[in-house]
């Protein structure tokens, strides 16, 4: 990673954590639906970046959110998992071309981008809510939370990427 990239990532990390814990965790749309924007850090992490470092950073990111929301390690687990399967999902959504370093998430076709975001968000939310509720009797609640929060998160992520893509493209 170049110095510039490192700086951008640090700023992104801090901003996403603050936006999440101060704002988005208190939206409570329809009483209990909150979007989780912070995994965007993992999604837009440089494609050529160090994967081991990403897994470690995701753990720190998740744990930071956990510290703020007193939730044990649920966000950390969800983050580490999507950081680990990210290469697989990248290949699934963009084809093998992503490995040739020609691809930029901000310039890829919108449909492919949405598939990528959607898959990552579903995995993240499913693990997050399964661990948070931690009771298979409430599987309907887990799926419902995943669906509702997921829709909210995907919309917010697509909007954020569109909003900030001009500068990075």
């Amino acid at each position, binding site marked *: 990673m170049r110095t510039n990239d490192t700086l951008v990532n640090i700023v992104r990390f801090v901003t996403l954590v603050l936006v999440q814990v101060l704002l988005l965790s208190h939206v409570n749309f329809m009483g209990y639906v909150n979007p989780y924007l912070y995994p965007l850090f993992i999604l837009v992490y440089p494609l050529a970046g160090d994967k081991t470092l990403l897994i470690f950073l995701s753990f720190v990111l998740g744990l930071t959110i956990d510290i703020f*929301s*007193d939730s044990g*390690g649920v966000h950390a687990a969800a983050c580490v998992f999507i950081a680990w399967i990210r290469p697989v999902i990248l290949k699934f959504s963009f084809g093998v071309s992503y490995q040739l370093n020609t691809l930029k998430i901000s310039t890829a076709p919108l449909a492919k981008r949405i598939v990528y975001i959607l898959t990552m968000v579903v995995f993240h939310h499913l693990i997050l809510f399964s661990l948070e509720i931690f009771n298979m009797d409430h599987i309907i609640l887990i799926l419902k939370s995943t669906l509702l929060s997921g829709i909210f998160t995907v919309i917010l992520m697509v909007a954020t990427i569109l909003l900030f893509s001009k500068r990075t493209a």
Partner: protein
Amino acid sequence: MQQILSFFIRNKNFLLFALLFGISIALTISSHSYHQSKAVTSANFLSGGIYQLKSSITDYFDLKQQNELLIQENAELRFLIENGGFRHAMMPIDTTVVDSNYTFVPARIINNSYTKSKNNLTLDKGRNDSILVDMGVLSPQGVIGIINSTSGNYATVQSVLNSNSHVVAKFKKSDHYGYLSWNGGDPNLIGLIEIPRLAPVALGDTIVTDGRSTIFPEGVPIGTVHNFNNDSGDDYYTINVKLFTDMTSVKNAYVIGHRDADEIQQLENEIEDEDQ
């Protein structure tokens, strides 16, 4: 040896993932058991400080509403004093110092959650203000929860809206007692379980805390019976209680300490040890 090393290097991503995922799961499980000191908590310098900063800004938005709640509480307390219920019960005639078993520390709630299945709150007071784990927390209207971790200047509260918490509650009129239990959903409704079928239950009955534990004094209001049924053929009612405290907007709290809590706990533990 070479092979082992190259195995580790080849699979370093998976191994790191497995290690960190394992740590996260362990943290999650330890946060699910109530009586374990929590490793990950918002009662620390960084998150406490950020929440304090946030609440020092956002607290102004509902100041009027919060003041009304406090005035309402003051009116209730004044009513008790003027009507003698309090003065004669609490104050022996020949002493000037009232000796009470309970201490109250006022605190502000700087972070609140009520939408998850395990909700916690963060207070702006901690060990330095003699707040300890297992103390009870009240709002001006009723019960909020129990302290589950503390740092120097902050403390976290396990809300009654947390599927791990089991606050003992009873009927004001009949002393039949059960446990509060929450499984998500409406933050103003909470389940009351293990009330035996022979107890008389009516809509609107007041539910208060039980004095059996050292956490809450007896008779602190919790809520009223919202609905109930006993159709299921169980020996127990299924009761939903509407909380007096609006958990979605609570800002002020009192932390209750029992002066002899340690002594009572120690005695009870000794007896339990002997029984085993």
